[in-house]
């Protein structure tokens, strides 16, 4: 079903409500109205055209937690160019790998510190010029890079139509509208934070950018000062905020209309606690992937008896469980969780990743194991792919193992997920010393600094004599988990 493009709706909001506040930066109170937003998009667009960016071209840019990224991201969408948002904290090595895969015509990095990158400054001059939207629903809009199970980054290609469907899907469930003011303390490079930008600007609402949850006093002042009605954060951020502020979020029980938590394991008691602190608020959590944003939603109050589940299929998504050979399974039977619908991405950038990405009928394979009950609630039971979910960030064990094996004294390495009360899961590393070597775990962790991102860094490093392997030589990760 054709839907209004995300960028078309944002620009309509800019035209219809130019004086309304679109963005607030809580660190200094700086605001941007919808009218100003349009001018920044227009100016960025002109500068991008001058830099020879054309419809269909790919542009990499670091998604710093600031307005500038948003202006450039929207300008690229308006031109029909493809945005490749990147984590500002990514390593130089990963940047280069992604660059090779993405094939960008331009790399924008705030301070031009990455190889062959251009700084943001020349692209941020507002211009009061009207322009036509060049994008159509079949055009590629974003490429989001995630970690693949082989350690090579995978480019998740999202079309304009996929993004329009995802925005509608989320806003339909949450029920947020133009009167809402949402505070987002999450990184904008992650699909969760990026989706919150889209959902708020599409609705004509106001988005407050808050820099993390580690300054609770500041965050609560922002909730108060900007009359915030919505809050979005990952489960780990709620756990941290809870540790730093106790029950204080309850003081906003009559002001917050909704709180959306991101997709990562969270104990049922943490969900119940949030719902009890905010009895009049829609408190919910989603299950999803970059490939299928918000496949399921769990409403902590309406679904209070099913808090161990990840909820039911979201409005524009269908969930089914499949056997390994592609047979759809009945309720109560365990198998691979598969999703289909307009919110599901059309495919990866690299063909090698597409071969086993879908089952017939357009069902995307999530790599998660689970079962649906007779009422459609999805319970996750494990994972087929060996990814580790650290507070919503997917970590490939192969990426970490490669770095570990490059450390002096390390013969072999294997990583598995370990339960973590804060992060949901953390990385646990097992290493086999090289011959005649006695590697020191703390020295290894120090050596990994700057080579891995914080969430990829193992929480524990255990030395073992040999890695358990199958007859064919495959590492038995389940056996390693039992040794944690």
């Amino acid at each position, binding site marked *: 079903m054709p839907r209004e493009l995300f960028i078309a709706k944002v620009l309509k909001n800019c035209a219809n409500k130019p004086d309304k506040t679109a963005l607030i930066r809580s660190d200094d109170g700086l605001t941007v109205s919808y009218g100003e937003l349009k001018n920044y998009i227009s100016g960025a667009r002109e500068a991008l055209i001058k830099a020879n960016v054309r419809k269909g071209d790919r542009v990499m840019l670091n998604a710093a937690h600031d307005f500038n990224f948003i202006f450039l991201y929207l300008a690229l969408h308006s031109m029909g160019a493809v945005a490749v948002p990147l984590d500002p904290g990514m390593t130089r090595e990963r940047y280069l790998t992604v660059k090779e895969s993405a094939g960008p015509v331009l790399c924008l990095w705030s301070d031009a510190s990455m190889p062959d990158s251009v700084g943001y400054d020349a692209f941020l001059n507002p211009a009061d010029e009207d322009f036509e939207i060049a994008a159509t629903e079949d055009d590629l809009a974003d490429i989001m890079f995630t970690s693949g199970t082989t350690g090579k980054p995978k480019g998740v290609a999202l079309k304009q139509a996929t993004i329009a469907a995802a925005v509608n899907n989320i806003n339909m469930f949450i029920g947020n509208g133009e009167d809402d003011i949402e505070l987002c303390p999450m990184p904008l490079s992650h699909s969760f934070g990026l989706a919150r930008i889209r959902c708020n600007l599409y609705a004509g609402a106001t988005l407050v950018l808050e820099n993390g949850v*580690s*300054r609770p006093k*500041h965050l609560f002042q922002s909730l108060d000062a900007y009359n915030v009605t919505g809050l979005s954060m990952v489960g*780990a951020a709620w756990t941290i905020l809870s540790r*730093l*502020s*106790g029950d204080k979020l309850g003081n906003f029980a009559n002001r917050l209309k909704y709180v959306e938590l991101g997709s990562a394991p969270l104990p049922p008691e943490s969900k119940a606690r949030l719902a009890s602190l905010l009895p009049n608020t829609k408190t919910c959590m989603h299950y999803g992937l970059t490939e299928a944003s918000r496949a399921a939603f769990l409403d902590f109050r309406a679904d209070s008896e099913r808090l161990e589940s990840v909820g039911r299929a979201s409005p524009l998504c269908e969930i089914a469980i499949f056997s390994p050979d592609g047979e759809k399974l009945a309720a109560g039977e365990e198998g691979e969780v598969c999703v289909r619908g307009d919110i599901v991405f059309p495919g990866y950038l690299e063909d090698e990743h597409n071969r086993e990405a879908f089952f017939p009928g357009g069902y995307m394979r999530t790599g998660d194991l689970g079962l649906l009950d007779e009422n459609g609630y999805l319970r996750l039971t494990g994972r087929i792919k060996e990814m580790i979910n650290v507070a919503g960030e997917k970590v490939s064990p192969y990426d970490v193992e490669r770095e570990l094996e490059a450390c002096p004294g390390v013969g072999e390495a294997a990583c598995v997920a370990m339960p973590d009360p*804060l992060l949901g899961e953390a990385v646990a590393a097992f290493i086999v010393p090289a011959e005649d070597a006695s590697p020191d775990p703390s020295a290894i962790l120090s050596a990994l600094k700057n080579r891995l991102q*914080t969430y990829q860094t193992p929480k524990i490093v255990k030395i073992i004599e040999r890695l358990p392997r199958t007859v064919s030589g495959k590492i038995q990760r389940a056996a390693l988990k039992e040794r944690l």
Partner: protein
Amino acid sequence: MDDANKEKLFGVVAATFEIDPATVSADMAVGSIPQWDSLGHLGLISAIEEAFEVSFDVDELFEVETVGDFMELLDKEL
């Protein structure tokens, strides 16, 4: 705070974030280095509680944003 405890605190901060103790100051705050993000903040709190054998309550932690704030907190606790 006496010099010994100050040095000890700065040492804990340096060890937590894997930085040179000479770069730690009372003005250093959440977000001033990439390692001091939300997770780093929680890690620092645990490391300080363990090193000084104290337990901070929520009302105390609510206000803390800098190394200097931790110094004030410890002054009350020790």
